[in-house]
């Protein structure tokens, strides 16, 4: 049993922390937000240069063969710096589908572009009424000749505005909430019949609602089994949840650090407000919440390699519950301890709070996952 990073992992952490310290302070972030699509292509290429975009891909595919711990390190660092660039959508999720189920031809077609930073992806999964159920799919893919015709609407597709390729879940068979009959398709963002409505999200990212109207793709667009890919989707979304847990830990670390610094310097009644016990105890509770979250983020990272899919999902659901509870407490109390200044757009703490809040509502919230764990018979 070992919770320490090995030498290579330590170097990875130093390298990404160093890169973000140099190029991602709060003022620089504001500039990146104003660039086309809401993030910085230059930063993205720097991540590519350091090999971070190729991290989880196998060496045969041109990557570095990194595992869950490496992704955890990167996501924590991205959280700490409140990074806008689409690492989750492109490398973790899009890349995840290719790693787990891409054909050799698909890997060859997409992975090099991800690794060199020239191409980004987006995951078009959420539907109007699907909420957090991954099997709830109304978008259809109907066979036409060798290929498929896709019709339907997807919502809040992160990086949907910029992505070159959309990874789309669609039903090839059965009814809306059937667990079988779901396929995953690679759709060029500029395909005929794809229309996008883009907007910034509450946490400063960008997303799009995307309509597919008779979008035709070839047989080579299918990842995995077109009629039975729910397990694949669950696998990749579990990895996304694990990545979000790590990102949240980074966000909480920085929120706590910023808050403690603030109450050490902010003076009222002639003294630093951090000298008041009620505030000290609140900050201590934030520390406890953040540490419990870190433990479960590590647990989720390691659970990702569990062979039994049920155990894996249960463990990751449990982690998402702990992260959800911790992030709500840490985020809300960070604002409270900042007082009025925490309510303003100028202070960075509010932006951390907003990103944390959106993570709670991504890929299943606390209640959703708590119910999953309960229904699976608990965790003891």
């Amino acid at each position: 049993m070992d919770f320490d990073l090995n030498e290579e992992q330590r170097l990875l952490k130093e390298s990404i922390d160093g890169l973000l310290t140099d190029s991602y302070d709060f003022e620089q972030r504001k500039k990146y937000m104003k660039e086309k699509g809401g993030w910085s292509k230059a930063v993205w290429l720097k991540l590519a240069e350091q090999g971070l975009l190729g991290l989880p891909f196998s060496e045969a595919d041109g990557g570095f063969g990194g595992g869950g711990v490496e992704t955890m390190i990167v996501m924590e660092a991205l959280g700490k710096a409140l990074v806008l660039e689409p690492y989750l959508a492109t490398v973790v999720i899009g890349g995840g589908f290719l790693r787990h189920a891409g054909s050799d031809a698909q890997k060859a077609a997409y992975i090099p572009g991800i690794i060199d930073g020239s191409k980004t992806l987006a995951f078009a999964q959420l539907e109007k009424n699907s909420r957090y159920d991954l099997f709830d799919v109304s978008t259809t893919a109907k066979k036409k000749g060798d290929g498929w015709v896709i019709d339907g609407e997807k919502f809040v597709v992160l990086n949907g505005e910029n992505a070159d390729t959309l990874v789309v879940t669609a039903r090839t068979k059965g009814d809306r909430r059937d667990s079988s009959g779901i396929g995953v398709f690679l759709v060029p963002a500029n395909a005929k019949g794809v229309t996008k409505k883009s907007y910034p999200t509450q946490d400063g990212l960008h997303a799009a609602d995307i309509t597919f109207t008779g979008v035709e793709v070839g047989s080579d667009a299918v990842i995995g089994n077109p009629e039975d890919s729910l397990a694949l989707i669950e696998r990749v979304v579990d990895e996304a949840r694990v990545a979000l847990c790590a990102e949240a830990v980074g966000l909480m670390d920085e929120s706590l650090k910023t808050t403690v610094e603030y109450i050490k310097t902010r003076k009222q009644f002639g003294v630093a407000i951090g000298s008041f016990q009620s505030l000290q105890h609140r900050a201590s509770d934030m520390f406890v919440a953040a540490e419990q979250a870190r433990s479960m983020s590590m647990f989720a990272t390691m659970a990702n390699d569990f062979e039994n899919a049920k155990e894996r999902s249960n463990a990751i659901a449990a982690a998402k519950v702990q992260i959800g509870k911790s992030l709500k407490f840490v985020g809300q109390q960070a604002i409270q301890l900042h007082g009025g200044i925490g309510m303003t757009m100028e202070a960075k703490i509010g932006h951390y709070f907003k990103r944390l809040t959106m993570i709670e509502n991504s890929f299943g919230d606390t209640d959703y996952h708590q119910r999953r764990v309960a229904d699976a018979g608990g965790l003891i």
Partner: protein
Amino acid sequence: MDLAFTKEEQAFREEVRQFFRDNVPPDTRRKMVEGRHLSKDEMVNWWRILNKKGWGVSHWPKQYGGTGWTSVQHYIFNEELQSYPAPQPLAFGVSMVGPVIYTFGNEEQKKKYLPRIANVDDWWCQGFSEPGSGSDLASLKTKAERRGDKWIINGQKTWTTLAQHADMIFCLCRTDNNAKKQMGISFIVFSMKSKGVTVRPIQTIDGGHEVNEVFFDDVEVPIENLIGEENKGWDYAKFLLGNERTGIARVGVSKERLRRIRDLAGKVEAGGKPIIQDAAFREKLAACEIELKALELTQLRVVADEGKHGKGKPNPASSVLKIKGSEIQQTTTELLMEVIGPFAAPYDVHGDDGSNEAMDWTAQIAPSYFNNRKVSIYGGSNEIQRNIIAKAVLGL
């Protein structure tokens, strides 16, 4: 980073588990499961079985009878012991005064006391808290004055756990009134049978008798019963309290209780079906299990860290263990109260003769709930723990 236990560690867990199955007296286990108090004989009997096996003082250095286990092995042993469940070794002897004696005591003291602690020939109790000195322990007033070759001790201790069984006490006494309050304290051990020692029981809200007041009235103690240096007692007390950083989370205890809740919730009916089938209850139970899993991982982080980097520098995460560990223990007793519902009310009408298995398990649930309010108060209240985090970790 690797969560898995090695093959050797897994085999060790099996060995420990099998030993408990073969050696913990069934009645002792039953009483533990039901949250009942054990008699002195029952406890001592079990500890001697442990000691005979060589596991009575497992974490002591080998030359004093310890096992030389890794920190992970200690973790496994504790978890299995707590979740079997079987009584943990008497903390006051094994975890508290023992390490102080082998670290700061002289050779004679080591020879005299250590083997007797290991075999519970002496039952030790802790003389720290006083009526006016709880969280502010360093303000303690019990006085030890030097008179010839004796200490003369006067004062009062309180919350002295199981002092009614005790043969020996380790006691923080003020030996210098003029020094800064932490600097004038000495660590003195003496017999509870000494003339002038009076033990008065305190009944707690669960109806039990665990804690006592202890009065010292001109108690004469041989001068050689001072451990370490005069006026250095505060350092030894801090050492003692910092020694058991990971056991305090009591993850195994909570695990065992959660298994029991799940089991009972499958039997007790609510709305015409087992309460475990109630979604709201199930989610509450899951929530507690998730919190416990997080705590277990935090504990493992501390254990792994100690194994690698030694016990010198406390892992910042270790301060989480007391707060969360106590909160979770309390939540488990709340969940038991919820399972039992209206049958929480009757007093222990059946006694403890094991004659009515269907109902016996209900009797101790409310007392156990009441009793467990203590866990966020003792060992440095959770508010003190928050002070520690604020100062030592956050630098506030």
